[in-house]
């Protein structure tokens, strides 16, 4: 079976580790992190990548459905396998066989998020440069006023100590309390190897991704 992976660059460290540990040899198409800002742009870009693929049977998505950005994609050239998660946070924080509960009042980061072009750190630095210190304080109070924690997710895919210092600096700038949480990349590894069980959406060639694929059937979501 010929497979290709379409991946968000934010997950680069985690996916590369998963590829290494599973000895996966599928080609990877990396998309810049910026696309997650607008679900419509993300959908458009992903569809274009799907449409351009040739001689591929199955496309594996290292993506959550951020902003429902994957809903509406058409499997025009191959089958699609998508983790059944609302976004990449739930993808890397979830644990096997346990229902995911998103921690409250928490802003989530990894090295990949801090490095990305749309990171909180970059947001802060841009704001300081464009709007000055006093307005930056006002803006960030509005942006993060309901948040209490900055959670650095330890996926095991990057040097935690190095990035913990940077995260602490950021936490101080934006007035949040830094916490860390250890997690694993089990879902990404299973994306590369299968089996494609209830943790994944399978969209056959010719079909379109719907909310139903993510479990939003009539009534409660399927577990």
């Amino acid at each position, binding site marked *: 079976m010929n497979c290709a992976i379409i991946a968000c660059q934010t997950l680069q460290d985690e996916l590369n580790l998963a590829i290494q540990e599973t000895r996966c040899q599928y080609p990877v198409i990396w998309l810049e992190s910026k696309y997650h800002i607008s679900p419509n742009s993300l959908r458009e870009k992903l569809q274009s990548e799907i449409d351009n693929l040739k001689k591929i049977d199955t496309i594996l998505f290292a993506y959550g459905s951020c*902003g429902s950005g994957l809903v509406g994609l058409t499997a025009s050239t191959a089958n699609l396998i998508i983790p059944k998660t609302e976004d990449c946070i739930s993808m890397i924080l979830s644990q096997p066989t346990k229902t995911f509960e998103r921690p409250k009042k928490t802003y989530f980061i990894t090295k990949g998020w801090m490095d990305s072009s749309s990171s909180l750190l970059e947001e802060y630095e841009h704001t300081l440069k464009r709007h000055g210190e006093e307005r930056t304080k006002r803006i960030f109070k509005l942006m993060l006023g309901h948040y209490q924690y900055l959670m650095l997710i330890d996926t095991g895919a990057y040097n935690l100590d190095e990035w913990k210092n940077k995260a602490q600096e950021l936490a101080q700038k934006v007035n949040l309390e830094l916490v860390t949480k250890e997690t694993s990349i089990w879902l990404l590894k299973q994306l590369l190897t299968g089996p494609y069980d209830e943790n994944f959406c399978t969209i056959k060639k010719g079909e379109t991704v719907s909310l139903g694929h993510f479990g939003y059937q009539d009534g409660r979501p399927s577990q």
Partner: protein
Amino acid sequence: MKDLNKMANSIIELVEQLEEESVKKLVDKALNEGMEPLYLLELIAEGMTRVGRLYESKDYYIADLIMAGMIFKDILAFDRMTPDFHKNNTGELGKVMIGTVEGDIHDIGKDIFKGMLEANGFEVIDLGVDVHKEVFVQKFEEYKPDIIGLSGVLTNTIDPMKDVISAFIEAGIREKVKFIVGGNHLTGGACQYIGADDFSNDVSRGIKVCKEWAELTYKGGINND
């Protein structure tokens, strides 16, 4: 008239460029020269729409969206805005209750929506963020709004939004109120799943929908008991 037109264009551009102090100075001048406050708010809203487009095209950051919202609130708070604001804000168009649903603490879009609703003649009750479905039901009984706006930025707010509407069905009061759901991730399919009457990905559309509903019954509110 020419001067006011020129000022109108400048106000839109200055909002787009996020020039807070310059906007405030020009708005002050425009009001002095007789520009209607509601028209002024439409200009600010147009500027904010342009900011939204710049954000979508990745030229602007989230902080810039917030800055635009701050400018909007600054203008709403102008002394000379408030007499007309209060005149318009008799709630004659209807009562809207809004809240960010359970599990989500984002409120920037909700707050901008609130400001525009009030400026357009709606009375608004804001329940805040992370609002449980039962609170929506309790507060409906207390305030009897015509419209309820459910806000959510996270993709996983689809179910909490549906839960709110299910709670209203269970309580036998679904038909007494219109629901609009707001958030960038929402689609027609999501709206259908949730069971809302309409949805919006941006403030302008949300206001348009609420005003259309208000026109259904221009006196006595949208849902007559």
